[in-house]
C-alpha cells in the first residue's frame, strides 16, 4: 500500500511540473496572440517599439538579449575555466576551500545587488576610464571600430554583458570544478608519468573526459543570462534602438517586460506584446536547452 501511494505521489509530482510548464507556455501564447495577429511574423524582426503609435516589435530586445548573453558567455567561460583549473590543479590545499567558497558565494548575491553595484560603481568606472580609452583607440580602427564607438555613458550592452558574466561565473566555475575533480587520478598520473605538462594534462586528459559536463555548465550559465532581469535593467541603458556599438544602450526581453508591465492596461496591445515577448523568451531558452542536448548527444556518440 505504501509503495502504491509513494509511486503515485512521485508520478503526480512529475506530472505536475509538466502540466505547469505546459500551462505557462499555452497561457503566454494565448495572451500574446493579439500581438502576433496584429504584427504577424514581423513582430519578431521589427525593431519598432512605439507605445504611442501602438506599434510593437521584439527585434531590439531579442537582439539585446542574444548579444548580452553571448558576450557574457565569452567573458565568463575563460574566467570560469581559469578558476576551476586553479582550484583543482594549481592551488595549494589551504587555498582551495576559501576561494571555492568565495566563488560559490558570488552565486548567492541577489541580482538587485549586482544591479546597484553595476549602476553606481561599474558603469561610472567604465564611463570614466575604460570606455573613453577604448573608443579613442580600438574605436578608430576600420570595420571592428564600429563596435566600439559612441558617447561613453558607462551603461550599455557591454556593461550589461560584463555584469552578467560575473553573475553566471559561479555556476560555470562550480560545475567545471566539480567535474574536473571527478577525473580519475590514475588518468592524470599516467599522463604526468609520460612527461606531459600541467597544461597538456588539462588539454589532453581532463577536458576530453569532462567535455559533456563542461558544455552543460556553460549552457546553464547561458540559460541564466538569457532571463536575468533586475541587474541588466540597471545597466543596459534601456533604449529601444539597435545601436551598432557595443557601448550603445539597448534592451533585453526580460528588462523590457519588467519596465513596461506596470504601465500596461489590461486588454491593450502593449500588454499582449509584452506577454508575446515572454513567450519568445521561453522559446529562446528552449532552443538553448535543445542545442545543448544536441551538442551533448553528438559528443556522446563520438
Amino acid at each position, binding site marked *: 500500500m505504501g509503495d502504491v501511494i509513494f509511486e503515485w505521489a512521485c508520478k503526480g509530482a512529475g506530472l505536475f511540473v509538466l502540466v505547469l510548464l505546459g500551462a505557462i507556455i499555452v497561457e503566454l501564447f494565448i495572451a500574446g496572440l493579439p500581438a502576433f495577429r496584429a504584427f504577424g511574423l514581423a513582430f519578431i524582426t521589427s525593431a*519598432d*517599439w*512605439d*507605445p*504611442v*503609435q501602438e506599434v510593437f516589435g521584439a527585434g531590439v530586445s531579442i537582439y539585446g538579449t542574444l548579444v548580452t548573453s553571448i558576450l557574457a558567455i565569452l567573458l565568463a567561460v575563460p574566467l570560469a575555466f581559469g578558476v576551476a583549473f586553479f582550484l583543482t590543479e594549481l592551488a595549494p590545499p589551504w587555498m582551495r576551500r576559501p576561494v571555492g567558497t568565495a566563488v560559490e558565494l558570488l552565486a548567492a548575491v541577489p541580482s538587485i545587488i549586482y544591479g546597484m553595484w553595476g*549602476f*553606481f560603481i561599474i*558603469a*561610472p568606472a567604465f*564611463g570614466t576610464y575604460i570606455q573613453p580609452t577604448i573608443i579613442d583607440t580600438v574605436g578608430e580602427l576600420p570595420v571592428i571600430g564600429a563596435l566600439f564607438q559612441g*558617447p561613453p*555613458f*558607462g*551603461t*550599455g550592452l557591454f556593461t550589461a554583458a560584463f555584469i552578467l558574466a560575473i553573475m553566471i561565473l559561479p555556476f560555470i566555475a562550480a560545475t567545471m570544478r566539480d567535474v574536473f575533480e571527478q577525473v580519475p587520478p590514475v588518468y592524470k598520473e599516467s599522463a604526468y608519468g609520460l612527461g606531459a605538462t600541467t597544461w597538456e594534462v588539462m588539454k589532453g586528459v581532463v577536458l576530453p573526459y569532462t567535455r559533456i559536463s563542461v558544455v552543460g555548465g556553460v549552457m546553464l550559465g547561458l540559460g541564466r543570462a538569457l532571463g536575468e532581469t533586475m541587474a541588466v*535593467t*540597471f545597466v543596459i*541603458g*534601456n*533604449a*529601444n534602438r539597435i545601436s551598432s556599438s557595443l557601448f550603445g*544602450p539597448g534592451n533585453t526581453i526580460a528588462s523590457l517586460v519588467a*519596465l*513596461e*508591465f*506596470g*504601465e*500596461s*492596461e*489590461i486588454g491593450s496591445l502593449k500588454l499582449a506584446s509584452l506577454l508575446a515577448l515572454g513567450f519568445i523568451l521561453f522559446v529562446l531558452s528552449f532552443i538553448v536547452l535543445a542545442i545543448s542536448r544536441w551538442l551533448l548527444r553528438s559528443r556522446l556518440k563520438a
Partner: protein
Amino acid sequence: MNRRTLLAAGASLAALPLILPRGAAAQAAQITGAGATFPNPVYQKWAEAARAATGIQVNYQSVGSGAGINQIRNRTVDFGATDAPLKPEQLAEANLLQFPTVMGSLVAIVNIPGIENEQLRLTGELLADIYLGKITRWNDPRIVDLNRGLTLPNLAIAPAYRADGSGTTFVWVSYLAAVSPEWKEKVGVGTSVRFPAGTGARGNEGVAGTVRQVRGAIGYVENAYAITNRLVTTQIRNKAGNFVKPSHESFTAAAAAADWSVPGFAANIVDTPGPDAWPIVAPTFILLPTNPTDPARSANVRRFFDWAFANGDALAKELEYIPLPQATKDAVRGAWRNQFGA
C-alpha cells in the same frame, strides 16, 4: 471565502493591536487604493493624518498608473490613481469618475562642469531638440546664445529618460509636444514613448544617478526629488517669454492659469501663459467608480479626499507638491454631489 475577504481579514488582523487600545476607533473604516507612484508620498502623509482625524484608514499601493487603472477597472480596489488622465469615453466605458487631488512639477537637471543650480537657461524648443538628438553638444550656438554669461564646454549632451513607463514621462513629453511640433509628430505623448536619443534609467533615482555620474548629462525628475537630492536644475523660458526658476511661486502661477472646466478635470497645465508660470506642472488624478459595489466605502473615499482638500495643503507643500486652487476643489466637490448625491 474569496481572496479579497481573506486579504481584508489579514489586514484587519494585522491592524488589530494598533486599533484595540483606542477602543472607539475599532470600527475604523478601511479603504484601499492603488496606482500612480508620483503622488504616493503625499497620499501616505494624508492617510496617516486622516486616520487620526477621521478614523478612515487608507491603504494606498503605489504600483504605477497603468496598474492602478487595471485594478480599478476590475474593482479590486476602492479607488485608482493615475497621472495621465483618462479620456471621457474611457471614463464612461469603465463607469469611472475622475478628479484631481494635487499637482506636481518637473524640472530639468543637468551635469555640466562649472554650471551651478538655476544658472543655465533653456527653452522648451531646445529641450525638445536635445531629446530628439538634434542638438548634441553643450556649446551649440543656440544654447550659447541664451547663456552669454556662462562658459559652456565642448561636451556631448547625454539625455537621460525614464525607462519604466511613468506619469513623469507623460508630463515631460506632454510639454515637449506642446512646444515642439516635430516632437508631437515624430514621438508623441504617452507614459512611455520611443525616445529617439539618449539612455534610459529606472525610476527618478535612476535618472538622477545617471545625470550625476555622466558629464554632460541632462534629465528630468519631479521637483521634490531634485530638492531633496540637491540636483542642479535649470531655468526654462515660459510661454510668456520669461525665464523662470523652479519655485513654489512659479508653480502656483502655472496652476492658477489652468483651465479646469474640461471633462474629467483633465486640465492642461503645461506651457500655461502666465508671466511667471513654470511651464511643466501637472495634476494627478483619482478614479472612482460611479457604480460602486460598496457605497459606504466609496463615500469614505470621498470623505478622505474631502478631508485632504480641507486640511492637507500644508502637508502637500511640505513635500513640494502644489495644492489645487480653491475653485477647483469646490468644482470637484460639486462633481461628487452631482454623481453620488449629498
